[in-house]
């Protein structure tokens, strides 16, 4: 299907009026992308009767130089260089009417180090474009020259571990529940119990900012009392993600400065604050030796459906460039969307220095990260101690496992819930390192650890049958959809 459409040249090309995109130079099947090109891959679903090549060329056009009609002012520029070039269109396996369109963009089209500029180009205008029923940004390849214009994670996995003095195991966290309504004083109690019980982190939820029941300053003060108490009680470094998300940048800086003044090792922001604010906070975090946690609030509105929107792997890539240190990236076995292979792709994007193309994980391009820091993925939502072997197998060691309900909902109390999680984790790491087949012997390993640990015994009993085994919607196109093994 990748036949040449016959780009018009010279005088013909600039005759006033309306012209097919594919004849304006946005469809160049012979084009070989340069090492310095940014490449984007879209899933396009043309309206009935629309030629997929023309639809793809339109995407290239509308995300770069084109408008709906020919303009003579193109001729005042090196227009051929600035035109994005769709160079390949493939049918999506098993999805009639959908096409993968590969589009190359010259590096000069982008401002260095700006996710806002990048996203304004790539997803700015074209998602509402009428000739397409739906359109999804699946994956991107960034040239090293462009990657190097970004700061990358403020702290990174290695330095985060060094700063916390925690090595060789996933970190443990919990989101304070209930999400809304606790006073600062009561909220701090939950933080203290969870950290003292054995967690490394606790976390504000995405919508905990500064509400009538608890203003931000009050929360910060009580939380830091709890963190310091737990630190002294255990001899370990502890942290709580203080959510500094606020209405304005000025407010966010004020809250972040206060968290720093109180000695917090970590602050938190929500994805909804926008790319510019995220990059500002990443720079602030780098300047202030602060770990920056990102809650991906809102992402499912555009990442979940396969035919339209932006894949989460794109968000993960943008966020690694933008410079956050933690990002929620799915649990596979928990309550939120997450196909095992697709999730594996997200984790690789966060943690590897080089991602080879791997279609079965939804990775369409080789991507070098050029020594940009590694981004710590966070697994949160509906997970519990009884799944420890599966979590370790699926997610690996460099991850924060967040057991919110699985800590605070423990029948013997919050500290007991935290202890149960920590004991389960350490027992599993011990067994894995000893070379045991921990995935299959997992329940046995947990049962044995529980013999010395009543809280773990109780946790295994309460949540023994809990699993969320639903079909995922966002699955790779190149393997049969798999259910998580539970």
């Amino acid at each position, binding site marked *: 299907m990748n036949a040449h459409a016959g780009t018009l040249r010279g005088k013909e090309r600039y005759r006033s009026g309306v012209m097919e995109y594919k004849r304006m130079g946005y469809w160049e099947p012979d084009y070989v992308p340069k090492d310095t090109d940014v490449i984007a891959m879209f899933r396009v679903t043309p309206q009935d009767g629309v030629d997929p090549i023309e639809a793809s060329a339109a995407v290239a056009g509308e995300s770069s130089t084109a408008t709906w009609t020919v303009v003579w002012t193109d001729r005042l520029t090196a227009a051929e260089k600035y035109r994005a070039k769709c160079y390949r269109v493939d049918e999506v396996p098993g999805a009639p009417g959908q096409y993968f369109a590969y589009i190359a963009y010259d590096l000069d089209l982008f401002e260095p180090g700006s996710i806002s500029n990048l996203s304004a180009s790539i997803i700015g205008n074209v998602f509402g474009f009428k000739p397409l029923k739906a359109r999804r940004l699946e994956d991107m390849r960034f040239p090293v020259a462009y990657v190097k214009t970004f700061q990358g994670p403020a702290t990174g996995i290695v330095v985060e571990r060094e700063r916390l003095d925690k090595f060789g195991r996933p970190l443990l966290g919990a989101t304070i529940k209930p999400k809304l309504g606790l006073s600062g004083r009561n909220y701090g109690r939950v933080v203290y119990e969870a950290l003292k019980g054995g967690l490394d982190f606790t976390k504000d939820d995405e919508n905990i900012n500064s509400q009538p029941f608890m203003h931000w300053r009050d929360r910060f003060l009580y939380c830091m009392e709890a963190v310091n108490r737990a630190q002294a009680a255990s001899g370990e470094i502890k942290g709580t993600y203080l959510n500094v998300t606020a209405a304005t940048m000025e407010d966010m800086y004020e809250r972040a400065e206060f968290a720093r003044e109180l000695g917090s090792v970590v602050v938190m922001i929500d994805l909804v604050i926008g790319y510019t604010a995220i990059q500002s906070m990443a720079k602030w975090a780098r300047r202030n030796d602060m770990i920056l946690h990102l809650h991906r609030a809102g992402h499912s509105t555009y990442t979940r459906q396969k035919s339209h929107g932006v894949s989460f792997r794109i968000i993960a890539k943008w966020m690694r460039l933008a410079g956050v240190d933690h990002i929620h990236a799915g649990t596979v076995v928990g309550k939120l969307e997450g196909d095992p292979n697709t999730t594996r792709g997200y984790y690789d994007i966060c943690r590897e220095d080089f991602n080879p193309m791997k279609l079965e994980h939804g990775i369409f391009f080789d991507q070098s990260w050029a020594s940009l820091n590694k981004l710590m993925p966070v697994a949160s939502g509906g997970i519990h101690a009884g799944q420890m072997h599966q979590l370790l197998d699926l997610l690996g060691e460099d991850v924060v496992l967040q057991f919110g309900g699985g800590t605070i909902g423990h029948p013997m109390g919050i500290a007991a819930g935290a202890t149960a999680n920590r004991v389960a984790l350490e027992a599993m790491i011990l067994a894995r390192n000893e070379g045991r087949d921990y995935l299959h012997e997992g329940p046995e390993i947990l049962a044995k650890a529980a013999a*010395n640990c009543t809280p773990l015994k109780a946790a295994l009993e309460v949540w023994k049958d809990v699993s969320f085994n639903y079909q995922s919607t966002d699955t790779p196109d190149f393997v049969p959809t798999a259910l998580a093994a539970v």
Partner: protein
Amino acid sequence: MRLTQGCFSFLPDLTDDQIYKQVQYCLANGWAVNIEFTDDPHPRNTYWEMWGLPMFDLSDAAGVMMELAECRRVYGDRYIRISGFDSSHGWESVRISFLVNRPAQEPYFALERQEVAGRVVRYATRLCPSREATP
């Protein structure tokens, strides 16, 4: 107070057999193994004293166990930890760290508070000798 630094502090103290297996895991990964000791386990005390140089290029954990036995003989009344160091690009840092010895009576940490304006508290964590040790 039971110090819970390191990878396995919530489990019963590791036996020599268990330590051997963890060290062998480090060696199998090509990591250098380091033994360190201290009488100051403050959470911000990064630099414990090194028991000799990190051990590179060992095949079997028995060599490390030999050094650990010697270190315990001399510093059995202190904290001793073993760590595995990965020199590969992108890590160049510790990959695992766990306690292998505790003093018979562990110290504890007192939390000191200094109240300043705006309800802010400045905290200092201070090491104190074991409560049990006082007659």
